[in-house]
């Protein structure tokens, strides 16, 4: 949740007029996780949508398709965990990105959000300026 708090402050609050849309997908990864623990006070910006994903559909999908993503601005591309879903991660896409079989236009992605936040901040500021 530290990543969500950081994103709210460093990305959205700092750039209130940035032309960006954010989709946050929450799901259980640890035994104590639960939908009831969703931090509703975080990422309340009107540009953000939240969903609960009980079967981890999105996390599983991105983990399966990670190799097909081609980040144009680098990043370390590290996801060292042996788990069933990509999580505690971000994926940033440029304005022209479209999703047919897989999404294109990936600027960067990172795991964990906090570990890779310098890259996200740099690429976010690049994206909203272009």
């Amino acid at each position, binding site marked *: 949740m530290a990543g969500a708090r950081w994103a709210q402050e460093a990305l959205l609050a700092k750039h209130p007029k940035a032309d960006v849309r*954010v989709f946050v997908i929450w799901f259980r990864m640890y035994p104590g996780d639960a939908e009831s623990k969703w931090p509703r006070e975080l990422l309340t910006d009107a540009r953000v949508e939240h969903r609960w994903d009980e079967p981890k559909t999105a996390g599983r999908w991105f983990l399966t398709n990670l190799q097909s993503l081609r980040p144009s601005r680098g990043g370390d591309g590290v996801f060292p965990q042996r788990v069933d879903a990509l999580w505690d991660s971000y994926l940033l896409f440029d304005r022209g990105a479209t999703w047919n079989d897989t999404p294109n236009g990936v600027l960067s992605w990172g795991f964990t959000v906090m570990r890779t936040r310098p890259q996200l901040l740099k690429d976010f500021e690049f994206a909203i300026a272009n």
Partner: protein
Amino acid sequence: MKFLRSIVAVCALAVLAAPHAAPAATTLSQLRGIQELKSWFNTFNGHTRLIFLLSPT
């Protein structure tokens, strides 16, 4: 009356100063499969898009 107008003006300015603030949602909708994410993604073509995959840990 002047005082009331001032109060209204201050409140209006406060609202305008926070154009992106939204009330915290009280419920969390279920993701309707990867198709919903894909649909959202393509709907906002022309905008920078950012996806977070998080757990409430």
